[in-house]
């Protein structure tokens, strides 16, 4: 009897191995084929796909205050959502033609790679390995974030340098954990980590006084602060201890699409620089402006190469009239969280956004 079982197990194992081998060996070339389909050569790929569908598939956060959240009617709003709308306005002429697919931090890159969306607009930090190793293209930075600290005012601390010996609520398994350790070690200070899993848990522990300090990205700190009933009792310290350049992402391989998405972002910023808003864009587009860059951006004067992008000359007018310029989007979504422009001001105002000329 036991002999039979052993023989059967061996046979079954061999069959399984054989089947597995056949499956995988047969699969390998197909996978390659699929890759070439999804990352089609420039000019014949993503843009045509989106136009044929009539809708842009955009991958967004499952819910982050200021960046992506559904309103009471079920319409997604937020800073990242505005960018999806802007791309749809440029490509399809209608900012409402977007399918939103929600993704968590863990699934966002696989969803993009699997073709579930053409743009990943989900507060994603630009890092070397994400850019290179995961074969995707970061098309720019739309929000400069950085890790900050929140403390109760009663603690009497005015600077992060005065946090020696504090207990800190920190999310495990994130880059913020490493940043925190480096910051405290660099300043010869000690701290007492209170490891937690989720943002919500951290807020509860912080509110109950289990930890003196709560640390995460500054935008997240402001959102947390907004949720407190007694928000005047807490403050965000001025120090920012890490670089978190957040930006939209597209797949490798379709340069035309990457160009479109990146110039939509730049058009929004250029519009702010030139004082073009959703209110005056139609008027400016109709007349001949002294500033020829405005004319080129709004399609009055020819912008060389625009046909290569496959966009109509009024692409930027659509973006700005339907979504607004960078400042409008920022004010609409992030001012309610009391987030200031800071690093996210244009370079002429002392921020980091420096826009290549529209020529």
């Amino acid at each position, binding site marked *: 009897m036991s002999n*039979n*079982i052993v023989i*059967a*197990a061996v*046979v*079954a194992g061999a069959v399984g191995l054989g089947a597995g081998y056949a*499956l995988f060996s047969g*699969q390998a070339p*197909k*996978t390659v*084929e*699929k890759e070439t*389909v999804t990352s089609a050569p420039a000019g014949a790929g993503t843009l045509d796909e989106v136009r044929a569908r009539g809708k842009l598939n955009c991958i967004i*956060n*499952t*819910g*982050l*205050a*200021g960046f*992506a*959240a*559904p*309103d*009471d009617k*079920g319409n997604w709003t937020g800073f990242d959502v505005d960018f999806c709308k802007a791309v749809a306005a440029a490509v399809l002429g209608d900012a409402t033609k977007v*399918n*939103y*697919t*929600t*993704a*968590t931090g*863990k*699934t*966002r890159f*696989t*969803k993009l790679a*699997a073709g*579930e969306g053409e743009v990943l607009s989900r507060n994603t930090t630009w890092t070397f390995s994400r850019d290179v190793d995961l074969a995707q293209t970061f098309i720019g930075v739309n929000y400069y974030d950085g890790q900050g600290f929140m403390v109760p005012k009663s603690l009497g601390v005015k600077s992060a340098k005065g946090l020696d010996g504090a207990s800190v609520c920190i999310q495990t398994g994130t880059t913020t954990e490493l940043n925190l350790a480096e910051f405290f070690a660099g300043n010869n200070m000690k701290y007492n980590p209170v490891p937690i899993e989720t943002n*919500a848990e951290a807020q509860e522990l912080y509110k109950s006084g289990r930890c003196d300090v709560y640390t995460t990205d500054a935008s997240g700190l402001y*959102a947390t602060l*907004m*949720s*407190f*009933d007694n928000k005047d009792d807490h403050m965000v310290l001025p120090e920012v201890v890490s670089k978190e350049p957040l930006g939209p992402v597209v797949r490798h391989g379709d340069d035309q699409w990457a160009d479109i998405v990146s110039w939509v972002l730049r058009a929004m910023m250029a519009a702010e620089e030139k004082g073009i808003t959703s209110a005056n864009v139609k008027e400016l587009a109709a007349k001949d402006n002294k500033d020829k860059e405005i004319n080129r951006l709004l399609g009055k004067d020819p912008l060389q190469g625009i046909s290569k992008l496959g966009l109509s000359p009024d692409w930027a007018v659509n973006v700005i009239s339907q979504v607004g310029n960078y400042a409008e989007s920022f004010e609409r979504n992030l001012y*309610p*969280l009391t987030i200031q422009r800071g690093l996210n001001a244009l370079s002429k105002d002392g921020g980091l956004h420096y826009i290549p000329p529209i020529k």
Partner: protein
Amino acid sequence: MTENAYKPGSYPDLPPPPGTVGVYGWIKNNLFSSISNTLLTIISAILLYYLIDGIIGWFLFDAVYDAESKIECRKIDSGACWAVITKRVGQFVYGFYPEAERWRIDISFLTMFIAFAPLLYPDIPKRKWLLWFSLVYPFLAYILIMGGYFGLQKIEYSLFGGFMLTVILGVSGIVCSLPIGILLALGRQSNLTVVRTISICFIEFMRGVPLITLLFVASSMLNYFMPPGTNFSILVRVIIMFTFFSAAYIAEVIRGGIQAIPKGQYEAADALGMSYWQKTRFITLPQALKISIPGIMNTFIGLYKDTTLVVVIGLLDPLGIGRAALADTKWNGLSTETYLFVALFFFVSCFAMSRYSLWLENKLNTDQK
């Protein structure tokens, strides 16, 4: 004396002495039987009053049911801000399903009860006719919910969410996993070595891997295994994973039921010359399934609640919708209200399932215990 008028043994029972029965008697015996008990009763009553007063007040009397934002809520009253629920109840129920098409969900949901009735209640009139409807129902529901046929607008799966998503995932998983689980349980007991080995491998693999891992496989890996061009929606992939996962557990529950049947039953069946399938259908399964009801229901309730895990792969079940609502700057910070509401929904559905299983157990009870 009148007492003598009764024959021996037929003397009527006298009423109990006053103060020992009824509300008064119960209170006297249980709450005020001694000084220390009386003290305890009074202290508990005071404590209960403050507790209940606070809780009920927060839940009902001081609560705000209609407001535009959390700040407005706080201005109106100090209790719970249910406005976050009332303003978004549509989203909690239907997710982002277009408002004009929501009747399709309503119809699918209501007809689901008609489809289930003949399966759940064997005594229902016209059961045979209803069973035909049950057979057609899955296709009907699919067409109604997904659309794309008969002029119905096609709805993207990314718009699915809320309780509707929970019910779709839970019910499909439950319905599909029971037959697969039964087959696996029989397969594991089979004398055919290949069938048995495959069943054991499947069950042990599915039970040995966390559900979250399977969900990640569904959301990211399956794309690579499928031949190019096939585009399973994430919803179907997730339902398949839920089904397999709970089928493995169901199989083990039913195996327990099969093994609890006395050996004499099989031997009697064999002696009558029954074939394997006759034996299974008339002897083994009816008894095994009856024994396994509590275990099966346990697995189903577990599966139903596990559907909340889809939030990790970016599908917005009620919990996900709740979290998204909290990310709206208007409602930021109302986590207690949101989570309580979701908890209430899950409690109601799970409690209903549990009551049904109790009813079924009683109905099938043959007093052989």
